[in-house]
């Protein structure tokens, strides 16, 4: 029963992942990514990691992917230039992919990563809370990395704002509230100068 669910979900995830990178329409790609996330959430549930499963659905499917959909639908992506040079780079790309796949197939087999090396996790009692366990780890053992990860997000925010805000500072805008309050003294400066004859005029 559990094995059946696992294989079904795994098949769904793999299918969706392949579709993400092969479908032509970017909106469809995003929707397939949502499907892949939902399948992964199911896999988390099988591992009794409820918090991760719910976080994946809420954060990724609920928030990130919706934003993604907005972006993809708003941007008018012209697909033709993206596919330019596809045939030209295909041999090199295929060679690299093939080499990598064969190395991985050779190394990532059951010898190092088989079921014998990875026993199934112990079943937890019904009152076991995945959230508590996660929180306990995160705020003790992983406290320092957790904080550093938060700083990385801060840097991402600073960088995003600095890179997008920059252009706006140079734009000259009208300020109507200052325009109507302007007085003559602000704009016109009367300078009294002694009258001057242009040089060389008197000589003639």
């Amino acid at each position, binding site marked *: 029963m559990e094995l059946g669910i696992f294989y079904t979900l795994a098949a769904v995830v793999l299918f969706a992942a392949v579709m993400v990178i092969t479908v032509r329409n970017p909106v469809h790609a995003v929707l397939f990514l949502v499907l892949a996330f939902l399948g992964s959430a199911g896999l988390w549930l099988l591992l009794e990691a409820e918090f991760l499963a719910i976080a994946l659905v809420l954060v990724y499917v609920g928030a990130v992917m919706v934003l993604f959909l907005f972006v993809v639908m708003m941007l008018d992506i012209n697909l033709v230039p993206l596919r330019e040079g596809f045939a030209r780079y295909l041999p090199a790309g295929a060679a690299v992919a093939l080499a990598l796949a064969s*190395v991985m197939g*050779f*190394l*990532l087999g059951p*010898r*190092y*990563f088989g079921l014998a090396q990875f026993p199934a996790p112990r079943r937890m009692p019904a009152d076991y809370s995945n959230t508590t366990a996660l929180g306990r780890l995160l705020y*003790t*053992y*992983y*406290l*320092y*990395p957790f904080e*550093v*990860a938060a*700083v*990385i997000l801060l*840097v*991402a925010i*600073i*960088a995003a*704002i*600095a*890179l997008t805000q*920059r252009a706006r500072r140079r734009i000259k805008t009208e300020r109507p509230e200052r325009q109507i309050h302007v007085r003559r003294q602000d704009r016109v400066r009367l300078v009294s100068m002694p009258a001057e004859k242009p040089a060389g005029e008197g000589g003639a």
Partner: protein
Amino acid sequence: MFYMLSAASPEIVVLVTACLVLLVDSSLRDRGHAAAYWLAQAGLLLALIGCALLLPRVAGLRWFFGMVVIDPLAVVLKSFVLVLVIVALIYGREYLRPRRWLSGEYFALTLMVALGALVLISAGSLLMVYLGLELMSLSLYALVALHRDAPATSEAAMKYFVLGALASGMLLYGMSLVYGVTGTLDLQTLARTLTAAQTGQPVWVLALVLIIAGVAFKLGTVPFHMWVPDVYQGAATPVTLLVSTAPKIAAYAMAMRLLAMGLSAGAAQWSPILIVLAVASMALGNLVAIAQSDIKRMLAYSTIAHMGFLLLGVLAASPAGYAGAMFYSIVYALMSLGAFGVVILLAGAGPETDRLDEFTGLGRRSPWFALVALILFFSLAGVPPFAGFWAKWFVIKELIHSGHVVVAALAVFFSVIGAYYYLRIIRLMYFDVGEAARPLAADGDLSLALSVNGLAILAIGVMPGVLMSTCLRAIGH
């Protein structure tokens, strides 16, 4: 609790300063830049004091469940990173102020680069290595893209970001293989449990190759050097200066933590890989640098060559070799700092051309700064008695000691080739007469810092034993 916090005191101070800098700068608007600058400098200085006073008291121990390692290596490297960033800010302000490019983000992101380097230097776990690296790299990508007035800058930022992400991915993949096989992320546990027989297995070789790719990208060695010339040339000079100093020391620390400490059992596997990287870097860097007419691009290829040389010290896989590489990384960072300081001085407030011709007749225009530049470029070329010579000397000595005589001979050969393009600048400064040379206008801070920088290179060159014995003690020899 107090000891635990003081173990992370430099990081905490730098982080708080970065946040304060952002607040001050955004609330004071245009007048905030001066306040932000002095605040950043004060924070870095405070962190440096923390490094010098608090860290030795908690040294030799692992904190935050082994995530943070405070050993003499960390104390020395952290102190140098903070000094480098302080000087980099002094140089950077002189360049950015006349161009009206000063911004709170520049200071905050520079502080974040320092923070990432500090985290990386005392990383005790693969997780911390990755997080420190990402913190540093992400801030650097943003800094490169910050002043994108020329198309070359956007191109540089894009290349740096895409290639950096790829390198991070490879590093992460290598780390995941290590974790998959051993079930631990802790570097000390890895060092204790791994045996040489284990690391000979194919899966370990793949993991090592991927991890070395990540390290080599950060150092900028061949064949992961593609980004270096474009980023050095495209980024604003203060950012180039930053890229070429503190992150190089951090990258050395990363190589030490990963290869020399965590995966020391695999030395027989990673040492030959490093030989290939080092020799290829020295060859390509020194040969291509000759053809450059842009000073920043030339210094980029010089970086590639120097980083190859640095790897020679690591691949000897002995304490003296590690100490030699540490000496090299510190001296290189100081030399690069000074060289870009000279570039900033020459650019002044006017339009920056970065042509080598800018150096023409410097000996007559400004005898003192020409002398400082002479010290720096002689040192980069490895001419005795300057610091660069001793850096090369210690590495080559240990290389011969560990039996890599052919590699040592190649290193000397390429160094001699490399000397040509540094000496060419000295010829331009002293023996060539330029047409209409601009007078130099240097601010008090810049000229003082640059003079101290040049004299430091001279002082290390006259007394290399002081720094070298510090390095040896830091490695634990």
